[in-house]
């Protein structure tokens, strides 16, 4: 087990820079999820930790060792790939034993470790099969087994669940959590799925276009997003954004009518801002109390919740209501929110205004 540190890590492919200086430190035994949209550089960052991509600039340290110049095999890490990367010509047993054999471990030790891992992952009856004779979920477990028999300092996961169907994904998510509690090994886990990120992470690194926009626990990121991007990326349905201008202390005038009260600091009158309110924090109210009023465009019944889609001039907003009161499209809805739950962002840079 070990801590992992990123110190101003950058990566370029030729002239194209794809990672623009990531700083983060991962504590010993922590489960860190790297999350972000497709192409933001998550895999690249993970592969630099693994040693599969060269680090263009900056440093990555595992434990107390800077690993920039080390080969993958000398970094004491194990990786689970999105396509599992099982050796197709070897049995499940040999897949797991391969790395141990190479390290010159004795047959009895190998056997003990493989059997133990197989026990944890319930792979016992499958040890003689070839990967192609396994289901997706079983392959996934073999890939994890291959990682845990090595007893590495750090586990690296690159979207390990994205090839599974929805139900299996939930189940495997639970198993990964259980496994981590059992083993306590530091883990870096890449995903673009914010639900996976929220449920698995001790802390998460939210990435956007090669930058780490925020590092924090899931609730910190949800309650206190650092940028407009993070606010929009985490949470489902995602946060509503409405354009407006500063209008005196604690007030923003919306571009398409209405005044939003907020608990943030001074915003210069006339400054362009973006107001962010999560769908679950918007509540229906009477006309006199409303922050704004808008036309109902569409109503989605999700069973427990109802999503009411509003049109507010050029802006759109979603209200999440706990129970369904039948609502007609075309009617007007008056909504308000707790000022403490109103976020403001700079209209240009997207930075949070506190």
């Amino acid at each position, binding site marked *: 087990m070990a801590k992992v540190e990123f110190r101003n890590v950058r990566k370029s492919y030729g002239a194209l820079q794809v990672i623009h200086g990531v700083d983060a430190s991962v504590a010993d035994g922590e489960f860190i999820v790297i999350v972000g949209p497709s192409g933001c550089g998550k895999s690249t960052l993970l592969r630099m930790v693994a*040693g*599969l991509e060269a680090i263009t600039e900056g440093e990555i340290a595992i434990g107390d060792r800077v690993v920039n110049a080390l080969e993958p095999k000398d970094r004491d890490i194990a990786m689970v*790939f999105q*396509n599992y*990367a099982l050796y197709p010509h070897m049995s499940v047993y040999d897949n797991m034993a*391969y790395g141990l054999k190479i390290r010159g471990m004795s047959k009895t030790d190998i056997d003990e470790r493989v059997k133990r891992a197989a026990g944890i992952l319930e792979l016992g009856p499958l040890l003689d099969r*070839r990967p192609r004779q396994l289901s997706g979920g079983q392959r996934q477990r073999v890939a994890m087994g291959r990682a845990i028999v090595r007893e590495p300092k750090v586990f690296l996961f690159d979207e390990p669940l994205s090839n599974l169907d929805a139900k299996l994904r939930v189940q495997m998510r639970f198993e990964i959590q259980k496994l981590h509690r059992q083993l306590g090994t530091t883990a870096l886990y890449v995903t673009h799925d914010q639900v996976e990120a929220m449920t698995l992470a001790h802390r998460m690194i939210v990435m956007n276009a090669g930058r780490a926009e925020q590092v924090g626990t899931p609730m910190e990121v949800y309650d206190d997003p650092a940028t407009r991007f993070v606010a929009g990326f985490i949470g489902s349905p995602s946060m509503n954004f409405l354009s407006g201008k500063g209008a005196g202390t604690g007030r923003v005038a919306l571009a398409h009518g209405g005044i939003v009260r907020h608990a943030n600091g001074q915003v210069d009158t006339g400054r362009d801002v973006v107001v962010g309110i999560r769908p679950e924090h918007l509540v229906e109210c009477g006309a006199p109390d409303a922050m704004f009023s808008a036309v109902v465009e569409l109503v989605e019944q999700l069973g427990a919740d109802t999503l009411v889609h509003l049109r507010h001039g050029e802006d759109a907003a979603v209200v999440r209501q706990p129970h369904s009161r039948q609502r007609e499209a075309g009617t007007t809805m008056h909504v308000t929110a707790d000022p403490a739950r109103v976020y403001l962002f700079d209209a240009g840079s997207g930075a949070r205004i506190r």
Partner: protein
Amino acid sequence: MEKRVVFRSWWLPYVLVAPQLAITIVFFFWPAGQAVWQSLLAQDPFGISVEFVGLENFANLVADEHYLASFQVTAVFSLLVAGVGMSVSLLLAVFADRAIRGAGLYKTLIIWPYAVAPVVAAILWLFLFNPTLGVVAHWMRALGMTWDPLLDSGDALALIVIAATWKQVSYNFLFFLAGLQSIPKSLIEAAAIDGAGPGRRFWTIVFPLLSPTTFFLLVVNIIHAFFDTFAIVDAATGGGPGQATEILVYKVYKDGFKALDLGGSAAQSVILMAIVIALTVVQFRYIERKVQY
């Protein structure tokens, strides 16, 4: 799921396969039948008398030490062609797979020889290695090696092996490269993380995963060495010196058209035909089972 086409009229399917069938009959079954028939006959060199002799031609062959020697030459020759050719092409394919810059040019250069006719290839190598005129022979002499393919049987064999292999390298290369590129990169990366160095990764991961390609090429190369090398032998050594490079196909030609022993020659070609059919069956059996892992 099986897809079946249902034809309205019963004769249409037969008409559709007729051209293919006609070609197969005219160019394969008919000459093959002729060969089998000829192999059962004995004819005097002037073609005056023909006599049915049953399996006597085959019995003669089995007892003929020249024929057995030719078999041995063919075996050595085809194993060398397949072995050397496949090793060299695999090595080149591994390089090409790794190459990032200039990969296109590199591949084109390796594929080129395939477009050269066998006779041209043989003559090219013959010139390069000609003891008196050849550039390579000149270098070899400068290095103190003796080289005389016209007199030394080992040198002669080496010459036709080089000429036959050279062309085949392009073909093997293409298949090996395609095979290498179909191995997911993440497998190699997983092995690297598991601690395997480049050599170990090659022998424990890449090579086993290439084995269907390797087996296919082995059969193709042996068939090539058995049958397609006639022009090379004819142009380069004419089977000599002595009988040192007289491979089976060449002997069929020599016995039939030079020695005019038509029956014996036909019997030899029947045996060759049996060998190629056996190889093809093995090949198909194997391909039907698809991959062995």
